[in-house]
Protein backbone atom coordinates (compact mmCIF):
# COMPACT_ATOMS: atom_id res chain seq x y z
CA UNK A 1 0.00 0.00 0.00
CA UNK A 2 1.12 3.55 -0.60
CA UNK A 3 1.20 4.25 3.12
CA UNK A 4 3.60 1.41 3.73
CA UNK A 5 5.99 2.51 1.03
CA UNK A 6 5.86 6.09 2.28
CA UNK A 7 6.69 4.86 5.76
CA UNK A 8 9.65 2.94 4.47
CA UNK A 9 11.00 5.63 2.18
CA UNK A 10 10.56 8.54 4.52
CA UNK A 11 10.59 7.30 8.10
CA UNK A 12 10.91 10.81 9.47
CA UNK A 13 7.91 11.97 7.52
CA UNK A 14 5.97 9.00 8.75
CA UNK A 15 6.92 9.88 12.30
CA UNK A 16 5.71 13.39 11.64
CA UNK A 17 2.44 12.01 10.35
CA UNK A 18 2.08 10.01 13.55
CA UNK A 19 2.61 13.11 15.67
CA UNK A 20 0.03 14.93 13.62
CA UNK A 21 -2.45 12.10 13.98
CA UNK A 22 -1.95 12.22 17.73
CA UNK A 23 -2.76 15.92 17.77
CA UNK A 24 -5.69 15.52 15.44
CA UNK A 25 -7.18 12.69 17.46
CA UNK A 26 -6.72 14.72 20.61
CA UNK A 27 -8.59 17.54 18.97
CA UNK A 28 -11.37 15.42 17.52
CA UNK A 29 -11.89 13.28 20.59
CA UNK A 30 -11.55 16.09 23.10
CA UNK A 31 -15.22 16.15 24.09
CA UNK A 32 -15.03 12.40 24.73
CA UNK A 33 -11.70 11.89 26.42
CA UNK A 34 -11.31 15.16 28.31
CA UNK A 35 -11.77 14.30 31.98
CA UNK A 36 -13.23 17.68 32.85
CA UNK A 37 -14.82 20.72 31.29
CA UNK A 38 -12.00 23.03 30.16
CA UNK A 39 -13.56 26.13 31.65
CA UNK A 40 -14.85 24.56 34.81
CA UNK A 41 -13.36 26.10 37.92
CA UNK A 42 -12.54 23.88 40.85
CA UNK A 43 -12.41 26.10 43.90
CA UNK A 44 -9.69 25.31 46.36
CA UNK A 45 -7.80 23.18 43.89
CA UNK A 46 -5.69 25.83 42.18
CA UNK A 47 -2.08 25.24 41.21
CA UNK A 48 -2.14 21.53 41.74
CA UNK A 49 0.94 19.79 40.37
CA UNK A 50 0.43 17.06 37.77
CA UNK A 51 -0.72 13.73 39.10
CA UNK A 52 -3.59 12.38 41.08
CA UNK A 53 -7.02 13.76 40.36
CA UNK A 54 -5.80 16.12 37.65
CA UNK A 55 -3.40 14.27 35.38
CA UNK A 56 -1.57 17.36 34.24
CA UNK A 57 -2.37 19.62 37.13
CA UNK A 58 -4.51 22.70 37.44
CA UNK A 59 -3.99 26.33 36.63
CA UNK A 60 -4.55 29.59 38.49
CA UNK A 61 -8.32 29.25 38.48
CA UNK A 62 -8.35 25.59 39.31
CA UNK A 63 -9.09 24.47 35.76
CA UNK A 64 -7.85 21.09 34.56
CA UNK A 65 -4.78 21.53 32.37
CA UNK A 66 -5.24 18.28 30.44
CA UNK A 67 -8.76 19.18 29.34
CA UNK A 68 -7.65 22.67 28.39
CA UNK A 69 -4.80 21.27 26.34
CA UNK A 70 -7.15 18.89 24.53
CA UNK A 71 -9.64 21.62 23.72
CA UNK A 72 -6.81 23.94 22.82
CA UNK A 73 -5.76 21.40 20.23
CA UNK A 74 -9.12 21.86 18.54
CA UNK A 75 -8.54 25.57 18.12
CA UNK A 76 -4.88 25.42 17.12
CA UNK A 77 -5.45 22.68 14.58
CA UNK A 78 -8.64 24.06 13.11
CA UNK A 79 -7.10 27.50 12.76
CA UNK A 80 -3.92 26.07 11.28
CA UNK A 81 -5.63 23.81 8.77
CA UNK A 82 -8.38 26.21 7.81
CA UNK A 83 -6.13 29.21 7.35
CA UNK A 84 -3.64 27.29 5.23
CA UNK A 85 -6.40 25.67 3.19
CA UNK A 86 -7.98 29.04 2.57
CA UNK A 87 -4.84 31.13 2.11
CA UNK A 88 -2.79 28.65 0.13
CA UNK A 89 -5.68 27.68 -2.14
CA UNK A 90 -6.88 31.18 -2.90
CA UNK A 91 -3.33 32.50 -3.22
CA UNK A 92 -2.28 29.59 -5.40
CA UNK A 93 -5.22 29.82 -7.75
CA UNK A 94 -4.77 33.54 -8.28
CA UNK A 95 -1.04 32.90 -8.61
CA UNK A 96 -1.49 30.32 -11.34
CA UNK A 97 -3.88 32.59 -13.20
CA UNK A 98 -1.48 35.47 -12.73
CA UNK A 99 1.46 33.46 -14.03
CA UNK A 100 -0.54 32.15 -16.96
CA UNK A 101 -1.51 35.71 -17.86
CA UNK A 102 1.93 37.11 -17.03
CA UNK A 103 2.38 40.67 -18.19
CA UNK A 104 -1.31 41.47 -18.34
CA UNK A 105 -3.04 44.10 -16.23
CA UNK A 106 -4.48 41.35 -14.04
CA UNK A 107 -1.00 40.08 -13.35
CA UNK A 108 0.61 43.47 -12.73
CA UNK A 109 -2.21 44.51 -10.43
CA UNK A 110 -1.85 41.46 -8.25
CA UNK A 111 1.93 41.74 -8.27
CA UNK A 112 1.74 45.23 -6.79
CA UNK A 113 -0.79 44.03 -4.25
CA UNK A 114 1.47 41.17 -3.24
CA UNK A 115 4.42 43.55 -2.91
CA UNK A 116 2.39 45.77 -0.64
CA UNK A 117 1.21 42.85 1.48
CA UNK A 118 4.72 41.46 1.71
CA UNK A 119 6.00 44.77 3.01
CA UNK A 120 4.85 43.59 6.42
CA UNK A 121 6.42 40.73 8.31
CA UNK A 122 3.90 37.88 8.41
CA UNK A 123 3.35 38.00 12.13
CA UNK A 124 2.64 41.72 12.19
CA UNK A 125 0.19 41.49 9.31
CA UNK A 126 -1.63 38.58 10.90
CA UNK A 127 -1.70 40.41 14.21
CA UNK A 128 -3.13 43.64 12.87
CA UNK A 129 -5.76 41.83 10.84
CA UNK A 130 -6.88 39.66 13.70
CA UNK A 131 -7.15 42.66 16.02
CA UNK A 132 -8.99 44.51 13.27
CA UNK A 133 -11.50 41.74 12.77
CA UNK A 134 -12.10 41.12 16.44
CA UNK A 135 -10.69 38.51 18.76
CA UNK A 136 -12.27 35.29 17.60
CA UNK A 137 -11.33 32.07 15.86
CA UNK A 138 -12.81 33.18 12.55
CA UNK A 139 -10.88 36.42 12.44
CA UNK A 140 -7.61 34.68 13.28
CA UNK A 141 -8.23 32.26 10.42
CA UNK A 142 -8.93 35.11 8.02
CA UNK A 143 -5.90 37.02 9.24
CA UNK A 144 -3.48 34.16 8.84
CA UNK A 145 -4.82 33.14 5.43
CA UNK A 146 -4.43 36.71 4.19
CA UNK A 147 -0.86 36.71 5.44
CA UNK A 148 -0.02 33.48 3.64
CA UNK A 149 -1.82 34.13 0.38
CA UNK A 150 0.87 36.45 -1.09
CA UNK A 151 3.58 33.84 -0.55
CA UNK A 152 1.50 31.15 -2.25
CA UNK A 153 0.65 33.56 -5.02
CA UNK A 154 4.30 34.27 -5.77
CA UNK A 155 5.42 30.63 -5.73
CA UNK A 156 2.57 29.39 -7.89
CA UNK A 157 2.98 32.29 -10.27
CA UNK A 158 6.54 31.26 -11.06
CA UNK A 159 5.45 27.64 -11.34
CA UNK A 160 2.79 28.64 -13.83
CA UNK A 161 5.23 30.74 -15.82
CA UNK A 162 7.69 27.89 -16.16
CA UNK A 163 4.88 25.47 -16.97
CA UNK A 164 3.76 27.84 -19.66
CA UNK A 165 7.16 27.72 -21.35
CA UNK A 166 7.06 23.96 -21.82
CA UNK A 167 7.24 22.56 -25.30
CA UNK A 168 4.07 20.56 -25.01
CA UNK A 169 2.19 23.77 -24.31
CA UNK A 170 3.61 25.22 -27.49
CA UNK A 171 2.60 22.06 -29.31
CA UNK A 172 -0.90 22.20 -27.84
CA UNK A 173 -1.36 25.73 -29.03
CA UNK A 174 0.03 24.79 -32.42
CA UNK A 175 -2.62 22.15 -32.94
CA UNK A 176 -5.27 24.67 -31.99
CA UNK A 177 -6.10 24.00 -28.36
CA UNK A 178 -8.20 26.76 -26.90
CA UNK A 179 -6.61 28.81 -24.12
CA UNK A 180 -8.90 27.50 -21.36
CA UNK A 181 -8.06 23.96 -22.43
CA UNK A 182 -4.34 24.67 -22.28
CA UNK A 183 -4.81 26.24 -18.86
CA UNK A 184 -6.80 23.45 -17.28
CA UNK A 185 -5.24 20.47 -19.00
CA UNK A 186 -1.60 21.41 -19.32
CA UNK A 187 -0.57 24.22 -17.02
CA UNK A 188 -2.69 23.62 -13.94
CA UNK A 189 -1.64 19.99 -13.32
CA UNK A 190 2.01 21.07 -13.29
CA UNK A 191 1.20 23.45 -10.47
CA UNK A 192 -0.31 20.90 -8.14
CA UNK A 193 3.05 19.75 -6.80
CA UNK A 194 4.27 23.20 -5.71
CA UNK A 195 0.84 23.82 -4.20
CA UNK A 196 1.06 20.73 -2.04
CA UNK A 197 4.63 21.54 -1.06
CA UNK A 198 4.00 25.05 0.16
CA UNK A 199 0.69 24.01 1.66
CA UNK A 200 2.25 21.42 3.90
CA UNK A 201 5.18 23.71 4.68
CA UNK A 202 2.81 26.47 5.74
CA UNK A 203 0.90 24.27 8.18
CA UNK A 204 3.58 24.36 10.84
CA UNK A 205 4.06 28.08 10.33
CA UNK A 206 0.34 28.71 10.67
CA UNK A 207 0.13 26.98 14.02
CA UNK A 208 3.15 28.90 15.25
CA UNK A 209 1.63 32.20 14.18
CA UNK A 210 -1.75 31.30 15.66
CA UNK A 211 -0.18 30.58 19.03
CA UNK A 212 1.84 33.78 18.82
CA UNK A 213 -1.35 35.74 18.14
CA UNK A 214 -3.07 34.13 21.13
CA UNK A 215 0.04 34.74 23.19
CA UNK A 216 -0.10 38.51 22.75
CA UNK A 217 -3.81 38.50 23.43
CA UNK A 218 -5.27 39.02 19.98
CA UNK A 219 -6.82 35.58 19.72
CA UNK A 220 -9.96 34.05 21.22
CA UNK A 221 -10.35 35.64 24.62
CA UNK A 222 -10.39 33.78 27.92
CA UNK A 223 -11.86 31.57 29.24
CA UNK A 224 -11.45 29.84 25.88
CA UNK A 225 -8.38 27.65 26.09
CA UNK A 226 -5.79 27.97 23.35
CA UNK A 227 -2.23 26.85 23.72
CA UNK A 228 -0.96 30.37 23.21
CA UNK A 229 -3.40 31.72 25.81
CA UNK A 230 -2.33 29.18 28.38
CA UNK A 231 1.32 29.95 27.78
CA UNK A 232 0.74 33.69 28.06
CA UNK A 233 -1.09 33.42 31.37
CA UNK A 234 1.52 31.10 32.78
CA UNK A 235 4.47 33.23 31.76
CA UNK A 236 3.07 36.54 32.77
CA UNK A 237 1.96 35.65 36.23
CA UNK A 238 3.25 32.58 37.90
CA UNK A 239 6.04 30.85 36.11
CA UNK A 240 7.97 30.18 39.26
CA UNK A 241 5.10 28.71 41.19
CA UNK A 242 3.77 26.37 38.56
CA UNK A 243 6.41 25.47 35.99
CA UNK A 244 4.26 22.77 34.43
CA UNK A 245 1.89 25.51 33.25
CA UNK A 246 4.75 26.96 31.22
CA UNK A 247 6.19 23.68 29.98
CA UNK A 248 3.08 21.79 28.90
CA UNK A 249 1.37 24.15 26.40
CA UNK A 250 4.72 24.98 24.82
CA UNK A 251 5.48 21.30 24.50
CA UNK A 252 2.13 20.74 22.80
CA UNK A 253 2.82 23.51 20.30
CA UNK A 254 6.36 22.34 19.62
CA UNK A 255 5.47 18.69 19.05
CA UNK A 256 2.59 19.54 16.73
CA UNK A 257 4.62 22.04 14.70
CA UNK A 258 7.49 19.55 14.62
CA UNK A 259 5.18 16.89 13.24
CA UNK A 260 3.87 19.20 10.51
CA UNK A 261 7.39 20.28 9.61
CA UNK A 262 8.57 16.69 9.27
CA UNK A 263 5.61 15.83 7.10
CA UNK A 264 6.14 18.95 5.01
CA UNK A 265 9.79 18.08 4.47
CA UNK A 266 8.87 14.55 3.42
CA UNK A 267 6.20 15.79 1.01
CA UNK A 268 8.70 18.19 -0.52
CA UNK A 269 11.32 15.48 -0.86
CA UNK A 270 8.86 13.28 -2.69
CA UNK A 271 7.27 15.92 -4.91
CA UNK A 272 10.00 18.42 -5.69
CA UNK A 273 11.13 17.71 -9.24
CA UNK A 274 14.54 19.23 -8.57
CA UNK A 275 15.26 16.65 -5.91
CA UNK A 276 13.98 13.76 -7.96
CA UNK A 277 16.40 11.29 -9.42
CA UNK A 278 18.65 11.85 -6.46
Amino acid at each position, binding site marked *: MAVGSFARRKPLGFFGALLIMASVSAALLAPIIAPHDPVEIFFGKEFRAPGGEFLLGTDKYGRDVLSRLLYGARISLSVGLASVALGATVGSFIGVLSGFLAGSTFDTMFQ*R*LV*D*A*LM*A*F*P*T*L*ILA*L*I*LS*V*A*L*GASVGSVITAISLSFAPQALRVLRSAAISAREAQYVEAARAIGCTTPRVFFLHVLPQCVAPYLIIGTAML*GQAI*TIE*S*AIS*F*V*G*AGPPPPTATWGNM*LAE*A*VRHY*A*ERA*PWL*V*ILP*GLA*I*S*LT*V*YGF*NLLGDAVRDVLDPRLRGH
Partner: protein
Amino acid sequence: MSYIVRRLFLLPVTLILASILIFGVLRILPGDVAQAILSQGGEGRYTEQEYQALRQQLGLDRPLYVQYASWLWDMVRLDLGTSMYLKTPVVKELARGLPLTFELALIAWLFSMAIGITMGVITAVRQDTWVDYVLRIVTISGVAMPAYWTGSLVILLLMVAFAWLPPVGVVPLWQDPWANLQQFIFPALIIGFHQAVIIARMTRSTMLEVLRQDYMRTAWAKGLGLVTGVRRHALKNALIPVVTLSGYQFGNLMAGALVMEFIFTIPGLGRTLFEAINVRDYPLVQALVVFTALIFVVSNLLVDIAYGWLNPKVRYR
Protein backbone atom coordinates in the same frame (compact mmCIF):
# COMPACT_ATOMS: atom_id res chain seq x y z
CA MET B 1 22.20 48.92 -12.36
CA SER B 2 18.88 49.41 -14.06
CA TYR B 3 17.56 46.64 -11.83
CA ILE B 4 18.32 48.74 -8.78
CA VAL B 5 16.81 51.83 -10.34
CA ARG B 6 13.63 49.92 -11.08
CA ARG B 7 13.48 48.68 -7.53
CA LEU B 8 13.99 52.17 -6.13
CA PHE B 9 11.19 53.35 -8.31
CA LEU B 10 8.84 50.68 -7.04
CA LEU B 11 9.62 51.49 -3.42
CA PRO B 12 7.27 54.47 -3.01
CA VAL B 13 4.52 52.67 -4.92
CA THR B 14 4.73 49.70 -2.63
CA LEU B 15 4.77 51.92 0.43
CA ILE B 16 1.75 53.88 -0.69
CA LEU B 17 -0.20 50.70 -1.36
CA ALA B 18 0.86 49.38 2.00
CA SER B 19 -0.24 52.58 3.70
CA ILE B 20 -3.64 52.39 2.01
CA LEU B 21 -3.95 48.82 3.23
CA ILE B 22 -3.17 49.76 6.80
CA PHE B 23 -5.41 52.79 6.68
CA GLY B 24 -8.30 50.76 5.34
CA VAL B 25 -7.86 47.86 7.71
CA LEU B 26 -7.88 50.08 10.77
CA ARG B 27 -10.90 52.02 9.66
CA ILE B 28 -13.09 48.99 9.18
CA LEU B 29 -12.73 48.06 12.82
CA PRO B 30 -15.76 48.24 15.00
CA GLY B 31 -15.37 50.84 17.69
CA ASP B 32 -12.99 53.73 17.35
CA VAL B 33 -10.53 55.71 19.35
CA ALA B 34 -13.03 58.35 20.38
CA GLN B 35 -15.00 55.62 22.08
CA ALA B 36 -11.90 54.32 23.79
CA ILE B 37 -10.93 57.75 25.09
CA LEU B 38 -14.35 58.60 26.42
CA SER B 39 -14.99 55.27 28.01
CA GLN B 40 -11.54 55.35 29.63
CA GLY B 41 -11.04 51.70 29.26
CA GLY B 42 -14.68 50.79 29.59
CA GLU B 43 -15.41 52.51 32.87
CA GLY B 44 -16.63 56.00 32.04
CA ARG B 45 -19.95 56.76 30.51
CA TYR B 46 -20.59 59.37 27.90
CA THR B 47 -23.40 60.89 25.94
CA GLU B 48 -23.88 60.66 22.22
CA GLN B 49 -23.16 64.40 21.95
CA GLU B 50 -19.82 64.12 23.71
CA TYR B 51 -18.96 61.26 21.39
CA GLN B 52 -19.79 63.22 18.25
CA ALA B 53 -17.98 66.29 19.56
CA LEU B 54 -14.82 64.32 20.18
CA ARG B 55 -15.07 62.69 16.77
CA GLN B 56 -15.30 66.10 15.17
CA GLN B 57 -12.38 67.36 17.22
CA LEU B 58 -10.21 64.45 16.14
CA GLY B 59 -11.33 64.81 12.55
CA LEU B 60 -12.95 61.40 12.45
CA ASP B 61 -16.17 62.58 10.87
CA ARG B 62 -14.58 63.60 7.60
CA PRO B 63 -14.97 61.29 4.62
CA LEU B 64 -12.41 58.50 4.54
CA TYR B 65 -10.50 59.66 1.50
CA VAL B 66 -10.14 63.11 3.01
CA GLN B 67 -8.72 61.61 6.18
CA TYR B 68 -6.34 59.49 4.13
CA ALA B 69 -5.18 62.41 1.99
CA SER B 70 -4.55 64.63 4.97
CA TRP B 71 -2.68 61.86 6.76
CA LEU B 72 -0.55 61.17 3.70
CA TRP B 73 0.26 64.86 3.32
CA ASP B 74 1.34 64.98 6.96
CA MET B 75 3.52 61.93 6.50
CA VAL B 76 5.27 63.46 3.53
CA ARG B 77 6.08 66.52 5.57
CA LEU B 78 7.34 64.15 8.28
CA ASP B 79 4.62 65.29 10.64
CA LEU B 80 3.64 62.00 12.16
CA GLY B 81 0.79 63.43 14.17
CA THR B 82 -0.27 63.03 17.74
CA SER B 83 -1.35 59.85 19.39
CA MET B 84 -5.07 60.20 19.90
CA TYR B 85 -5.08 58.08 22.99
CA LEU B 86 -1.84 59.02 24.71
CA LYS B 87 -1.98 62.66 23.68
CA THR B 88 1.75 62.68 22.99
CA PRO B 89 3.41 63.20 19.62
CA VAL B 90 3.89 59.98 17.72
CA VAL B 91 7.49 60.88 17.07
CA LYS B 92 8.12 60.84 20.80
CA GLU B 93 6.73 57.33 21.15
CA LEU B 94 8.77 56.20 18.18
CA ALA B 95 11.93 57.76 19.53
CA ARG B 96 11.36 56.08 22.85
CA GLY B 97 10.71 52.57 21.64
CA LEU B 98 12.49 52.24 18.31
CA PRO B 99 16.10 52.33 19.56
CA LEU B 100 15.35 49.53 22.01
CA THR B 101 13.57 47.31 19.52
CA PHE B 102 16.16 48.05 16.89
CA GLU B 103 19.02 47.29 19.25
CA LEU B 104 17.41 44.00 20.22
CA ALA B 105 16.82 43.06 16.59
CA LEU B 106 20.35 44.03 15.60
CA ILE B 107 22.07 42.05 18.35
CA ALA B 108 19.77 39.11 17.61
CA TRP B 109 20.67 39.35 13.93
CA LEU B 110 24.38 39.29 14.67
CA PHE B 111 23.89 36.29 16.93
CA SER B 112 21.81 34.52 14.31
CA MET B 113 24.53 34.96 11.71
CA ALA B 114 27.34 33.92 14.03
CA ILE B 115 25.56 30.89 15.45
CA GLY B 116 23.81 29.89 12.25
CA ILE B 117 26.77 30.01 9.93
CA THR B 118 29.00 28.21 12.41
CA MET B 119 26.45 25.45 12.92
CA GLY B 120 25.83 25.16 9.21
CA VAL B 121 29.50 24.91 8.30
CA ILE B 122 30.19 22.34 10.99
CA THR B 123 27.27 20.13 9.99
CA ALA B 124 28.32 20.35 6.35
CA VAL B 125 31.99 19.63 6.89
CA ARG B 126 31.36 16.87 9.39
CA GLN B 127 28.42 15.43 7.48
CA ASP B 128 26.90 12.22 8.83
CA THR B 129 29.06 12.19 11.93
CA TRP B 130 27.61 12.35 15.41
CA VAL B 131 28.31 16.09 15.48
CA ASP B 132 26.11 16.47 12.44
CA TYR B 133 23.26 14.47 13.96
CA VAL B 134 23.36 16.28 17.28
CA LEU B 135 23.37 19.68 15.64
CA ARG B 136 20.61 18.68 13.24
CA ILE B 137 18.41 17.67 16.14
CA VAL B 138 19.15 21.05 17.71
CA THR B 139 18.25 22.89 14.52
CA ILE B 140 15.03 20.97 14.02
CA SER B 141 13.84 21.65 17.52
CA GLY B 142 14.76 25.29 17.08
CA VAL B 143 12.42 25.51 14.14
CA ALA B 144 9.45 23.87 15.84
CA MET B 145 9.67 25.53 19.23
CA PRO B 146 8.07 28.94 19.43
CA ALA B 147 10.61 31.58 20.39
CA TYR B 148 8.46 32.95 23.19
CA TRP B 149 8.29 29.49 24.71
CA THR B 150 12.05 29.17 24.72
CA GLY B 151 12.17 32.64 26.22
CA SER B 152 9.69 31.65 28.91
CA LEU B 153 11.66 28.53 29.71
CA VAL B 154 14.86 30.55 29.99
CA ILE B 155 13.15 33.00 32.32
CA LEU B 156 11.82 30.10 34.33
CA LEU B 157 15.29 28.69 34.61
CA LEU B 158 16.77 32.03 35.61
CA MET B 159 14.09 32.59 38.21
CA VAL B 160 14.42 29.16 39.72
CA ALA B 161 18.17 28.75 39.55
CA PHE B 162 19.43 32.27 40.13
CA ALA B 163 16.49 34.00 41.82
CA TRP B 164 16.52 36.57 39.01
CA LEU B 165 13.60 38.86 38.25
CA PRO B 166 12.89 40.69 35.00
CA PRO B 167 14.02 44.29 35.48
CA VAL B 168 11.45 46.99 35.03
CA GLY B 169 13.16 49.74 33.08
CA VAL B 170 15.98 49.69 30.62
CA VAL B 171 19.32 51.41 31.04
CA PRO B 172 20.21 53.27 27.84
CA LEU B 173 23.26 52.09 25.97
CA TRP B 174 25.35 55.22 26.35
CA GLN B 175 24.64 55.50 30.04
CA ASP B 176 25.88 52.08 31.06
CA PRO B 177 26.71 49.79 28.17
CA TRP B 178 27.37 46.76 30.30
CA ALA B 179 24.07 46.84 32.19
CA ASN B 180 22.24 47.53 28.98
CA LEU B 181 23.83 44.60 27.20
CA GLN B 182 23.18 42.36 30.18
CA GLN B 183 19.50 42.96 29.82
CA PHE B 184 19.47 42.45 26.06
CA ILE B 185 21.68 39.44 25.84
CA PHE B 186 19.16 36.75 26.74
CA PRO B 187 16.27 37.82 24.55
CA ALA B 188 18.70 38.54 21.71
CA LEU B 189 20.26 35.12 22.10
CA ILE B 190 16.89 33.42 21.98
CA ILE B 191 15.58 35.28 18.96
CA GLY B 192 19.00 34.87 17.36
CA PHE B 193 18.98 31.14 18.01
CA HIS B 194 15.62 30.65 16.35
CA GLN B 195 16.68 32.56 13.27
CA ALA B 196 20.07 30.86 13.39
CA VAL B 197 18.57 27.43 12.81
CA ILE B 198 17.03 28.59 9.54
CA ILE B 199 20.35 30.06 8.49
CA ALA B 200 22.15 26.90 9.58
CA ARG B 201 19.98 24.73 7.37
CA MET B 202 20.60 26.98 4.39
CA THR B 203 24.35 27.21 5.08
CA ARG B 204 24.51 23.45 5.33
CA SER B 205 22.99 22.86 1.92
CA THR B 206 24.99 25.55 0.12
CA MET B 207 28.17 24.42 1.83
CA LEU B 208 27.55 20.83 0.83
CA GLU B 209 27.08 21.96 -2.77
CA VAL B 210 30.28 23.99 -2.72
CA LEU B 211 32.34 21.24 -1.12
CA ARG B 212 31.50 18.93 -4.01
CA GLN B 213 33.01 21.33 -6.52
CA ASP B 214 36.17 20.52 -8.40
CA TYR B 215 38.09 23.52 -7.12
CA MET B 216 37.65 22.23 -3.58
CA ARG B 217 39.09 18.90 -4.63
CA THR B 218 42.08 20.77 -6.01
CA ALA B 219 42.46 22.57 -2.70
CA TRP B 220 42.52 19.34 -0.72
CA ALA B 221 44.83 17.73 -3.27
CA LYS B 222 47.19 20.65 -2.88
CA GLY B 223 47.46 19.72 0.75
CA LEU B 224 45.48 22.64 2.11
CA GLY B 225 44.33 22.17 5.68
CA LEU B 226 40.64 21.88 6.42
CA VAL B 227 40.26 25.24 8.09
CA THR B 228 42.28 27.17 5.53
CA GLY B 229 40.59 25.45 2.63
CA VAL B 230 37.15 26.16 3.93
CA ARG B 231 37.97 29.70 4.92
CA ARG B 232 39.72 30.73 1.76
CA HIS B 233 37.62 29.03 -0.88
CA ALA B 234 34.44 27.39 0.23
CA LEU B 235 33.08 29.97 2.64
CA LYS B 236 32.80 32.91 0.30
CA ASN B 237 30.84 31.05 -2.31
CA ALA B 238 28.63 29.25 0.14
CA LEU B 239 27.77 32.40 2.02
CA ILE B 240 26.25 34.46 -0.76
CA PRO B 241 22.74 32.98 -0.64
CA VAL B 242 22.99 32.69 3.12
CA VAL B 243 23.71 36.36 3.63
CA THR B 244 20.84 37.36 1.42
CA LEU B 245 18.49 35.02 3.24
CA SER B 246 19.67 36.44 6.52
CA GLY B 247 19.02 39.95 5.27
CA TYR B 248 15.49 39.11 4.22
CA GLN B 249 14.91 37.61 7.65
CA PHE B 250 15.51 40.93 9.35
CA GLY B 251 11.84 41.77 9.12
CA ASN B 252 10.90 38.54 10.88
CA LEU B 253 13.57 39.31 13.43
CA MET B 254 11.94 42.60 14.26
CA ALA B 255 8.56 40.90 14.54
CA GLY B 256 10.09 38.32 16.87
CA ALA B 257 11.68 41.08 18.90
CA LEU B 258 8.27 42.70 19.34
CA VAL B 259 6.88 39.54 20.92
CA MET B 260 9.98 38.87 22.99
CA GLU B 261 9.74 42.33 24.55
CA PHE B 262 6.58 41.17 26.26
CA ILE B 263 8.31 38.44 28.16
CA PHE B 264 11.47 40.26 29.04
CA THR B 265 9.67 43.52 29.87
CA ILE B 266 11.64 45.69 27.50
CA PRO B 267 9.66 48.87 26.82
CA GLY B 268 10.26 48.91 23.10
CA LEU B 269 7.87 49.32 20.22
CA GLY B 270 6.21 45.95 20.82
CA ARG B 271 4.15 46.91 23.82
CA THR B 272 3.39 50.34 22.34
CA LEU B 273 2.13 48.75 19.14
CA PHE B 274 -0.13 46.18 20.79
CA GLU B 275 -1.69 48.67 23.15
CA ALA B 276 -2.24 51.12 20.34
CA ILE B 277 -3.92 48.49 18.19
CA ASN B 278 -6.21 47.54 21.02
CA VAL B 279 -7.50 51.07 21.58
CA ARG B 280 -7.65 51.80 17.84
CA ASP B 281 -5.19 54.65 18.19
CA TYR B 282 -5.06 55.28 14.46
CA PRO B 283 -2.17 57.75 14.17
CA LEU B 284 0.12 55.70 16.37
CA VAL B 285 -0.64 52.35 14.78
CA GLN B 286 -0.45 53.73 11.24
CA ALA B 287 2.84 55.47 11.86
CA LEU B 288 4.36 52.47 13.61
CA VAL B 289 3.23 49.98 11.00
CA VAL B 290 4.24 52.13 8.03
CA PHE B 291 7.58 52.65 9.73
CA THR B 292 8.03 48.92 10.17
CA ALA B 293 7.06 48.37 6.56
CA LEU B 294 9.59 51.04 5.54
CA ILE B 295 12.37 49.34 7.48
CA PHE B 296 11.39 46.00 6.00
CA VAL B 297 11.26 47.22 2.41
CA VAL B 298 14.48 49.23 2.71
CA SER B 299 16.36 46.32 4.26
CA ASN B 300 15.15 44.05 1.44
CA LEU B 301 16.38 46.56 -1.07
CA LEU B 302 19.75 46.79 0.67
CA VAL B 303 19.99 43.01 0.56
CA ASP B 304 19.25 43.03 -3.16
CA ILE B 305 21.97 45.60 -3.72
CA ALA B 306 24.40 43.70 -1.49
CA TYR B 307 23.70 40.53 -3.45
CA GLY B 308 24.48 42.32 -6.67
CA TRP B 309 27.78 43.45 -5.20
CA LEU B 310 28.70 40.18 -3.46
CA ASN B 311 28.05 37.80 -6.32
CA PRO B 312 31.04 38.14 -8.64
CA LYS B 313 28.98 36.86 -11.54
CA VAL B 314 26.71 39.86 -11.21
CA ARG B 315 29.35 42.36 -10.21
CA TYR B 316 31.77 41.94 -13.08
CA ARG B 317 29.25 41.68 -15.85
